[in-house]
């Protein structure tokens, strides 16, 4: 018997949705880390990130939220998380000039190496869209 041509309920997948971004701005302080971790974990789960990469991403978030306050322009740090196919982009914004490099330097742990370099797949520094300071853009593969 040849296969039925009637599509099953899951035969047609919905058209891919455009990348969805979540913007988070949080005051530097004890709340910053837990909020970023919670938002990131939801984005990662939605992207069906494998568990090992999920852990890597949360370690990365911990490092960033721990060290970013020393490199921001004022008392807040801004993040934009974008889930794309098999990739998460984390943009750390409102850093002062030189703040991205400072943040990277601070993430260096003895006997471990640089946590940001180790757990992200690519890194770049961009000037801030509002003209002041800079942004650190990290990408994490979730394949």
């Amino acid at each position: 018997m040849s296969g039925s041509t009637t599509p099953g309920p899951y035969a047609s997948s919905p058209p891919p949705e455009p990348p969805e971004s979540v913007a988070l701005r949080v005051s530097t302080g004890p709340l910053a880390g837990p909020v970023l971790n919670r938002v990131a974990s939801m984005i990662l789960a939605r992207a069906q990130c494998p568990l090992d990469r999920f852990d890597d991403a949360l370690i990365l978030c911990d490092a960033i939220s721990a060290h970013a306050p020393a490199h921001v322009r004022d008392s807040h740090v801004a993040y934009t998380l974008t889930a794309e196919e098999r990739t998460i982009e984390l943009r750390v914004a409102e850093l002062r000039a030189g703040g991205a490099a400072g943040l990277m330097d601070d993430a260096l742990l003895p006997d471990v190496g640089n946590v940001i370099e180790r757990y992200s797949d690519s890194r770049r520094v961009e000037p801030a869209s509002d003209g002041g300071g800079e942004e650190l853009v990290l990408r994490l593969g979730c394949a």
Partner: protein
Amino acid sequence: MKPDMELSLPARAENIALIRHAFGALGETFAVDEELLSDVRLAVTEACSNVVVHAYAEEAPGPLEVLATLDDGTLTVVVRDEGPGIAPHPDSPGLGLGLPLIASLAESVHLGRDEHERTEVRMTFSLSNGQVDGAWSTPPAGGVASAADPDDPDDQTDPATRT
């Protein structure tokens, strides 16, 4: 005064869970009474649900913003959208209990528009019963607190100890 936390994301149903989860950080960080935290999260969930269901009914989901500020023991949460505004919806799929529920959970509720004509629901909650003092940028006295988060899979609190 800048909000202590701002979230801006598309007004989609799945993002309500994200917002709700983010507010759990309040309990993770400070000794906020679990019942009060549940009230805050429920009120915020209701306000965000209204945005998702009503603000952009016939259009692609527009922006949903949630701002939270803690000042002198009072938590102010603003849920904001760029829809046409709050109006009766006789054809609403819901029971119409969202705003009354928010009013019963929050200390005060204000419906209106901000300076950019965006629709907003502004809620305040008193956290001052010895739970939280000062702003969120102030470390909690006695270290990290304890309120269990039933939505948090990482929460290792013994369920038997949750009240």
